[in-house]
């Protein structure tokens, strides 16, 4: 958000400004998640021909806030045999780690808390840390089901990170940068310029998007890969012993990670803040853009498209949950190691060949 920082050199003000930005992103994100959760439940209900939440507020819109209140007010139970420090740190870690990932996500032109050069790697690093929340929660509960859940999730998340990493490499190769803003900018134009649909790499990149999406499901322990919390075998997996606010934090951390994965999919493959039809030249000095200033207006439009794409991907997450039965653990491992890993490796090979070929042809 450099455009807001240009006017001052005062370090204290700068720190306050960054804090303000962080607060803004967090609050907007949490609000968005409240409604995304509602959306999730509505989609699930719709597929099952139910009504879903419809009591609190108009159409049940405030259901998430009611849930929030319930969790906060409930008693927090710490099991006697638990390792108390780790038990309490785990949920905090889960939420914090998924929240700080959002620092590098470019929401609109110039709207990013920290424009890191190695943004993609930062995301990979922070989401790989997410496993600690789960594994610590599972271990500290000092109980069998949570422990099994924690171990399962550790193996699962580490496995799928590998293929996520290789998919990221293909995007990095195509855009030539690890900076997320640059990656989005390299997809300027209509949807035919987005990496998921751009010719001729669509042959490789569209499958890569699918692999990324499925790996994201596994990485965030979403159905059909929610084995760490498989209720038929492990009650609720690593969350069994949690209640009240700590449970809320774990749950919130998961939801933030899911939205992050949606945002990643749209940034890496769906052109981030770009509109699907390209710049139509509708806005000039005379219209609304003139009133707000071109830059701000563009950013607002960009943020709109970004939010729309995130919501679309989130819809896919919700839809998969409603439609696909849960995988068995060996199937999950087979999919990750024997199918996704080789496929994405071949994709890296193909894409790097393509990049070398085109850059040689250009030179």
């Amino acid at each position, binding site marked *: 958000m450099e455009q807001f920082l240009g006017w001052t050199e005062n370090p204290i003000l700068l720190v306050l400004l960054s804090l303000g930005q962080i607060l803004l992103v967090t609050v907007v994100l949490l609000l968005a998640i409240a409604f995304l959760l509602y959306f999730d439940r509505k989609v699930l209900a719709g597929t099952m021909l139910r009504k879903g939440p419809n009591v609190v507020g108009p159409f049940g819109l405030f259901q998430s806030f009611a849930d929030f209140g319930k969790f906060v007010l409930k008693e927090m139970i710490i099991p006697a045999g638990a390792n108390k420090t780790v038990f309490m740190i785990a949920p905090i870690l889960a939420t914090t780690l998924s929240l700080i990932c959002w620092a590098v996500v470019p929401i609109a032109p110039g709207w990013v808390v920290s424009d890191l*050069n190695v943004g993609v790697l*930062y995301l990979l*690093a922070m989401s790989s840390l997410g496993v600690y929340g789960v594994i610590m929660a599972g*271990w500290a509960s000092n109980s069998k089901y949570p422990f099994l859940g924690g171990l399962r999730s550790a193996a699962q998340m580490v496995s799928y990170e590998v293929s996520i990493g290789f998919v990221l490499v293909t995007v990095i190769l195509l855009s030539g940068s690890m900076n997320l803003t640059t990656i989005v900018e390299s997809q300027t134009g209509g949807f035919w310029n987005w990496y998921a649909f751009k010719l001729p790499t669509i042959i490789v990149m569209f499958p890569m998007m699918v692999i990324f999406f499925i790996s994201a499901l596994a990485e965030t322990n979403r159905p059909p890969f929610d084995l760490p919390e498989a209720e038929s075998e492990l009650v609720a997996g690593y969350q069994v012993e949690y209640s009240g606010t700590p449970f809320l934090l774990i749950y919130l951390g998961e939801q933030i990670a899911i939205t992050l994965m949606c945002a990643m999919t749209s940034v890496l493959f769906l052109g981030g803040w770009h509109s699907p039809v390209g710049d139509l030249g509708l806005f000039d000095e005379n219209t609304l853009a003139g009133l707000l200033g071109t830059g701000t207006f563009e950013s607002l439009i960009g943020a709109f498209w970004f939010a729309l794409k995130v919501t679309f991907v989130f819809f896919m997450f919700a839809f998969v949950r409603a439609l696909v039965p849960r995988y068995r653990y060996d199937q999950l491992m087979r999919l990750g190691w024997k199918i996704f890993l080789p496929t994405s490796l071949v994709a890296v090979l193909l894409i790097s060949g393509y990049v070398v070929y085109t850059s040689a042809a250009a030179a």
Partner: protein
Amino acid sequence: MEVIAFSILSAIVLIAAFCVIAARNPVHSVLFLILAFFTSSGLLVLIGAEFLAMLLIVVYVGAVAVLFLFVVMMLDVDFVELKQGFLNYAPFGGVVALVFFAEIALVASAMGASRPETFDASPNAETNVEAIGQVMYTDYLLLFQISGIVLLIAMIGAIVLTLRHRPGVRRQSVEEQTGRKRADAVELKDVRPGQGI
């Protein structure tokens, strides 16, 4: 600003590193180790080597330490038993540690002369990533390839030591499972009442 950040980060690294060996619970040790890794990557960010910092987290914290934690949690390590051996070796270990400490102190005292004045984390390039890439695939290509072979050997070794093909064990064949047709499994019979098949 940087000095403050450096002091805080390195203090945390040192304390965490000490706690790794001082903690009674092995799981706590690993968690402190993770903290030490994480904070050291902060130190790398401070000198401008952000690529290395992220790699440290992705590789060590995200993958290696998870497996450490995995193993330590699964093993039921009896620390009382381990501590008993400790006292027997303590005098000898102490002597070795003292000698080593004295050596390092001597080396540190000699360090002043050769310390470079400035440090550039990304020479001849805009970013750290480019700087590393430029030498890794040109000057040091050989080392890069040998590292690949070392990893291959590690993989072969792991397979040699663990993979077993026991005869007589029923295994799943995914091809068979997915290739199964309805006609292979179910047969429709027209059963008349009172007659049986």
